[in-house]
């Protein structure tokens, strides 16, 4: 790999990182796990003047319980997230979706925060964060602020993280006792999702008391499938209910067309996969 020349900074605290980012100006890029940045550098599709590597900030890898939230440091690698007991117990859907990301090598390098800040709509974790109403803690020169998932994803590769700011933590409400499933459809095992559906359900007896549904790669951002959620609530957890709710899967989407799937096929997949995800989540 021969990228264009850049300067390299490896701060040891968030404060240092924010300062480095301010000093570096517009051309700086933040390096988290590097699983998207390095390919772009390798192909010279980006030529940042400075790379600020967050790998030296140990605090950013921590996963902890914080009252009614599970707080995950932005630099926690996928491998840690998917195996963490707190995540498995309280945010099962995140653990399930993370286990489908690429391959073990990528999951050891890539990070939750990096993937979410990169905001590729084909990435698996945005739909989960959106469906589960995650909060994003963002640090800047004037301190930290918290942004809800519904405001975080703005457009293709664009988030609410502003210039001079760094994503430091992602906080998930606890979904203890919910059932969930991430239904992913891709060309090969390591490939990006052509389409995927994240579902979490709170069952009460045989019926669905609450539902959270997110869609991967069905628009310029992850999509919250509110129509599906509304159609599920109050229904018995049955194949018929899943099928009927899945008919709402494409509401509010803008499916992209590419070589793997033209928009019509992608929409079809969204409906089929939504039905399957709901049934799988319902057990």
């Amino acid at each position, binding site marked *: 790999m021969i990228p264009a020349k850049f300067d390299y900074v490896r701060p040891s605290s968030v404060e240092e990182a924010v300062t480095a980012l301010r000093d570096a100006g517009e051309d700086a890029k933040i*390096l988290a796990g590097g699983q*998207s940045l390095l390919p772009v550098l*390798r192909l010279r599709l980006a030529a940042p003047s400075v790379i600020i590597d967050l790998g030296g900030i140990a605090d950013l890898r921590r996963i902890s319980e914080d009252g009614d939230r599970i707080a995950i440091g932005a630099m926690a690698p996928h491998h840690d997230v998917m195996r963490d007991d707190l995540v498995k117990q309280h945010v099962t859907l995140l653990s399930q979706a993370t286990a489908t990301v690429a*391959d073990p090598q990528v999951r050891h390098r890539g990070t939750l925060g990096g993937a979410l800040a990169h905001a590729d709509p084909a990435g698996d974790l945005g739909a989960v964060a959106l469906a589960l109403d995650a909060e994003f803690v963002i640090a800047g020169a004037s301190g930290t602020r918290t942004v809800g998932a519904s405001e975080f994803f703005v457009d293709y*590769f664009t988030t609410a993280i502003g210039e001079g700011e760094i994503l430091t933590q992602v906080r998930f409400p606890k979904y203890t006792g919910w059932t969930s499933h991430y239904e992913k459809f891709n*060309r090969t095992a390591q490939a990006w*999702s052509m389409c995927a559906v994240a579902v979490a359900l709170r069952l009460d007896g045989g019926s669905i008391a609450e539902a959270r549904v997110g869609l991967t790669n069905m628009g310029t951002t992850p999509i919250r499938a509110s129509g599906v959620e509304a159609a599920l609530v109050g229904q018995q957890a049955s194949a018929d209910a899943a099928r009927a709710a899945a008919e709402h899967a494409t509401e509010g989407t803008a499916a992209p067309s590419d070589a*793997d799937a033209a928009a019509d096929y992608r929409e079809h997949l969204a409906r*089929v996969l939504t039905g399957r995800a709901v049934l799988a989540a319902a057990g």
Partner: protein
Amino acid sequence: MTTTAEPTTTELGKARTRKEDARLITGRTRFTDSITPHGTLHLHVVRSPIAHATITSVDKSAAEASPGVIGVFTAADLGVEAVGLPCAWPITPDMKAPQRPLLASSTVHFAGEGVVVVVARTAAEARDAGDLVEIDYDALEPVLDMEAALAEGATLVHPDLGTNENATWVFDSGAAGTGASVDEAIAAAEADPDSIVLRRRFRQQRLIPAFMEPRSCVVDPTGEQITVWAATQVPHILRTMTTVTLGVPESKLRVIAPDVGGGFGGKIGVLPEEMLCVAIAQRLGKPVKWTETRSESLLAAHHGRDQIQDLTITAKKDGTVTGLDVHLLADMGAYLGLVGPGVPILGAFMFNAIYKIPALKFTCTNVFTTKTLTDAYRGAGRPEATFGIERIMDELAVELGRDPMDLRKQNWITHEEFPFTTVVGLTYDSGNYEQATDQAMATFDYAGLRREQEERRARGDKVQLGIGISTFTEMCGLAPSRVLGSLAYGAGGWEAASIRMLATGKVEVITGASAHGQGHETAFSQIVADQLGVPFEDVEILHGDTQISPKGLDTYGSRSLVVGGIAIVKAAEKVVAKAKKLAAHLLEASEDDIEFNAGQFTVRGTDKGKAIQELAFAAFMAHDYPEDMEPSLDSDAVYDPENFSFPHGTHLAAMEIDTETGKVSLRRYVCVDDIGNVVNPLIVEGQVHGGLAQGIAQALFEEANYDDQGTLVNGTFVDYTLPSAADLPSFESSTVSTPATSNPLGVKGVGEAGTIASTPAIVNGVIDALRHLGVTNVEMPTTSQRVWRAIQEAKGNSTQETPIDTHSPGAGLGSIDPNNPQGEVQ
């Protein structure tokens, strides 16, 4: 042989782990890019992003001023405008052959063609300066579609040739006298109510060989000889062709292929970059290196396959095939590769496959387009032919309402009929299709799976089951030199070997085969250990350096064992003959009374004897040896095979298709290959598994496509989708053995078998799963989208065409146009 006892075969058939693997796995070896002579300069080639254009200006000034840059050169700057790369296979006397330059001078003919080369002190400086070279282009119309390229008034890739047709090559069994006339067979079938005529069109998509080690070349011009290290399959051919191309005397060139990380045919060429390295090293008097990036490799290294196949098969309604007419269009790309035009022609001899087809005609038209050139890719011509015949045999079975395996049995050559001379004039020396098929069918539980298929159909299951069959054969062990001569191929097909008996009893074996992952060192050591009766560990295999192994024709076409291995046997026989003479002298016995067994030369009926190591030492000392021999046991041999070898096998695939999503899953894959005697079953298993993965990948995953501007859209491994282990099941592979009668070891080639056999098995299985829904064809790769659309069309639902030329995903990203990246990247 005059030895009186059969050599023991303690090594042949032993599943030894490969002696190469320790150094390869631990990295304790050198590939070309890890060789850096002191003072090496680095090359970076600036390539055209446009498929077809006139170069209007080249501004090198900024690049020349860039740090570390030694020079920035066009072809004119280097004085190499008149240099053309070789094509060694003029398939017809009047073949149209454009000159492929080292760098494009006035016109670029494919996206990825080099225009300027930058030389700098480091690879990074060369790459940085490359970005500063400004080249202006006037775009010309790209030529992308083979049929349109042949139409009247088409834009010409090379206007001076007056046509986009490279050549049309015809074989007609009626005219050749090897069989009946296809035209008559078709006319007869059309006139006969008890016969049918079936026509089908199949496509072989364009594939990328995707070897693991990117191509690389290092040239050191200091010293008496110019030394060239190259990641190549063909160091000997590269040396000769460097002389042909650049005029450097062959005796002044030393070519070394160190450990080479795969090839699959993709490293059979003579590269413009290799010739640039030699020319620039000579000009500057310094060592130079060029190593491509992965994206350069996908873009500019030769591609494979890319054919349109129009087949007509005629048969009696009782199932007897009466004729096969084959019309191919083969995409050469913008220029001709070293053996590119001959690759589809190799298929001419394999369309009849294992069947007793009485009439065959093969017509192939090679076409120029403004795409990357095509050349050999694992199987080279035979996978295409096997796909065509095995697909249309399934189609014929459907038309006739027959079980596809029964129809094959009815038409194949039975084991009593060998040796069998086919409709194209090849003589299959041996084979037993019944044996391989019976074993495969039993392992697979063919009848049980057919029952399950019926049940799923009857229930209307969401997941449908398909059974795919491929009963393949191939011709490998390229090749008898006289046959190559008759095909106007630019070389022979022999292989050379030498054996040196060292004073200490160790054995050095020099082979002209050039391994790049096959395991030659292990397999050849096993052969020599048996032939000479020495320990496996005492045998060293030397190869891949024209000063160590001066004579050879390298590795391709599953030839290393069946040609190179036999050359080693022949050399070993000479060693034994010399040793026997020396033994007789030292033991004061008649040569006729000397028996050789397991490394011991003994006087018959006595306990007097000498070990081969003792004789090697005696020859080295040379204190006492017969007057009519030289004091050496060392021997050379050159072996030219009299025939190809014809491995065959029966491959069965159980395919599951999710009819809701179109997702295709390979549930089981059973294959039984007959490759004659097996030297090392572990290496065979590895070759079969890797071959299967590549053949299955053509059926399910891989496709190199161009957009309407002639830009490769699958330019990274994100969108050129190679399968990994997670995408494939555990293969159930086994072998049976009908020894070849055409060589003394009874062996057949195995390097390409899995690739050749598996593609039609998979596609036949996919279509078999969908046939009852009204689907008759799905083009490769049979992606979920294509399958879903095929089902929709069969249901009468209108659906758009599957797009193949859209940029996305790419650039290591999930959903981005690599030409238009945007947004934050973290």
